[in-house]
């Protein structure tokens, strides 16, 4: 019978069926960071249990670290304490730790794939909701809470119900100036912020087939914003070419044997799905959010919709979004004034993202009064960007070039919005308060669009600048 990648990965990792009816699922790769792990390690200590498979567990620092001065101890005492805890917990339990002096530190969802830790056919868990990112290589990856981090540390397993599977097909071809970020924002707009609850998403179709691995990472990253806990792309030649030579990928002849297994895990062409949704990729414009959840978006040429145009249950959230953002229904999104630009986060901080943003910024100047920062996703991304001179391009244009971390995606370090500042951000959440100010405002968009917003001090159709 025809199977999907989800079926195959699920079967291969099933330890047993639990009395509750859920599956006891083995986790092949467990990634941890400083925010959601300390309480889990504490619980483990109280249970007098060791980390069951330290060799399959990897740790890094990303959420709280400063992106400016990084000498230890950090100026922020609590951040320092969290870093100390993670370092000590990793060392004591034999878990590999990518600290600031490793050259490999970075946002957990950036370093997993770039180090080749993330591989097709795996189950991957991390105490972070954007873990679906890793699905881009053909893994089943999901975000978990701290109690589940404890369970994976203690047992390398999770109690899970198998999700239903929806194929999301993107047909046609993207037009110039339209990127993976626009595709996922268009998908979330079409299917809703909770449309994916209970589902895993398999992204497919000609647009996805043609995407680079980094574009697929951006696509899968925001699965959770559409309610889907995991999302993946079947492994193909693009995947194998991306993984070859990465530090933790199989080497030499083992790599070729791995490719054979990876290929065997992909969905069959005649597999059936619980649901299939189609989007026309050719019709997707550069997207911008106008509201307070990632589904509240419009094409850059559109006007902000009126609450009355939304289905009844969504109208209250529309009104709340307009009120928080200070927008009027019917107002064009293009031209909305910007105070801050943030290029970074696990959605859009990889080398290709920085190249696109730098190409827009090159030879131009950030608009007066706009604070613009570029935060590479990892130390390896930073190094690659600096080798190409991208940091100089950004600096000359008036952007700040920072060290790797989550930064203004969630404002747990000093990188925060102040007061009601409006930010053009390449991150993944525009929730109220998300960027560190309870009254701050966030417009989500692609790196090209964010760079264009920085130069003009307002939301701008980047396609006009690419001509």
């Amino acid at each position, binding site marked *: 019978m025809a199977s999907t990648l989800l079926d195959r990965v699920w079967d291969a990792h099933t330890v047993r069926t639990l009395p509750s009816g859920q599956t*006891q699922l083995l986790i092949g790769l467990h990634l941890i960071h400083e925010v959601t792990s300390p309480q889990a390690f504490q619980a483990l200590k109280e249970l007098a249990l060791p980390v069951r498979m330290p060799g399959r567990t990897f740790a890094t620092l990303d959420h709280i670290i400063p992106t400016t001065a990084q000498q230890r101890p950090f100026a922020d005492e609590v951040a320092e304490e969290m870093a100390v805890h993670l370092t000590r917990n990793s060392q004591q339990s034999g878990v590999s730790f990518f600290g600031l002096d490793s050259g490999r530190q970075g946002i957990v969802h950036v370093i997993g794939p770039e180090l080749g830790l993330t591989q097709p056919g795996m189950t991957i868990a991390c105490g972070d909701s954007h873990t679906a990112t890793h699905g881009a290589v053909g893994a089943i990856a999901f975000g978990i809470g701290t109690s*589940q981090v*404890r369970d994976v540390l203690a047992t390398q397993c999770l109690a899970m119900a198998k999700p239903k599977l929806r194929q999301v097909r993107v047909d046609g071809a993207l037009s110039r100036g339209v990127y993976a970020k626009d595709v996922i924002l268009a998908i979330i707009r079409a299917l809703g912020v909770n449309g994916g609850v209970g589902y895993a998403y398999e992204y497919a179709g000609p647009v996805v087939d043609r995407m680079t691995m980094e574009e697929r990472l951006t696509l899968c990253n925001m699965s959770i914003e559409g309610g889907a806990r995991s999302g993946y792309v079947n492994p193909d030649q693009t995947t194998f070419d991306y993984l070859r030579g990465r530090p933790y990928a199989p080497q030499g002849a083992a790599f070729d044997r*791995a490719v054979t297994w990876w290929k065997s895990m992909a969905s069959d062409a005649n597999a059936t799905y619980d649901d299939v949704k189609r989007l026309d990729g050719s019709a997707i414009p550069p997207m911008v959010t106008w509201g307070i959840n990632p589904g509240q978006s419009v094409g850059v040429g559109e006007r902000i919709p009126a609450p009355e145009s939304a289905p009844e249950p969504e109208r209250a959230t529309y009104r709340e979004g307009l009120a928080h953002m200070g927008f009027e229904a019917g107002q064009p999104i293009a031209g909305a004034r910007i105070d801050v630009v943030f290029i970074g986060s696990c959605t859009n901080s990889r080398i290709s993202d920085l190249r696109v943003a730098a190409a827009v910024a090159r030879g131009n100047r950030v608009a007066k009064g706009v604070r613009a920062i570029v935060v590479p996703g990892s130390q390896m991304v930073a190094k690659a960007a600096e080798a190409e001179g991208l940091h100089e391009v950004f600096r000359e244009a008036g952007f700040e070039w920072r060290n790797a971390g989550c930064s203004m995606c969630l404002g747990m370090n000093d990188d925060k919005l102040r007061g009601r500042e409006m930010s053009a951000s390449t991150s993944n*959440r525009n929730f109220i308060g*998300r960027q560190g100010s309870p009254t701050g405002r966030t417009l989500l968009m692609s790196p090209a669009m964010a760079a264009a917003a920085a130069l003009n001090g307002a939301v701008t159709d980047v396609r006009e600048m690419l001509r």
Partner: protein
Amino acid sequence: MSDSARRQIAGRAIPIPGNDIDTDRIIPARFLKTVTNEGLGLHAFEDARKHDPEHPFNQKAYEGASVLVAGMNFGCGSSREHAPESLKQWGIKAIVGGSFAEIFFGNCTMLGIPCLSISQDDVLWLQRAVGRDPKQTVTVDVERQEVRAGDRVIRARVPDGARNQLVSGAWNATGVLLDAGDAIEATAGRLPYVKGF
């Protein structure tokens, strides 16, 4: 019946109107800067409360409530377990809502907080009923999948897996997972990427 079984929870209720209430709203990220769970209950809905003096978590009438009544997609966003933990410390023992984000639902279950889904009409009815009479007892019956308020019985839903865990008291999964013993290593040993390609 073990102490941990969550068959039925009865108490006063507190409505949180609106849909898509995300975990950044339930507990802003700055309160995640901690290596323990201490004091999280004090910061539940902190920014929303500051912004809106009428926020239910500010109202004396709802003090001591143990059943939270929410709208659609409650708990969307970040996987931070600090969100349900803060509600739990505040006193919430069960949540009734239109629907729940999946990670949040799982986190609540892991903390022994049942989340029951009811229809949107029932959400609005229950929120209004509680608003009119905050003193009334709302009973959340996990086993029978119903919510009772006054003489009304509302049909509710909890997926089988979570319901079995909650009703039997096996919602803290560590022990159950450990019971698999060597089968864990055996499963791992069959995976080509663990054995080595």
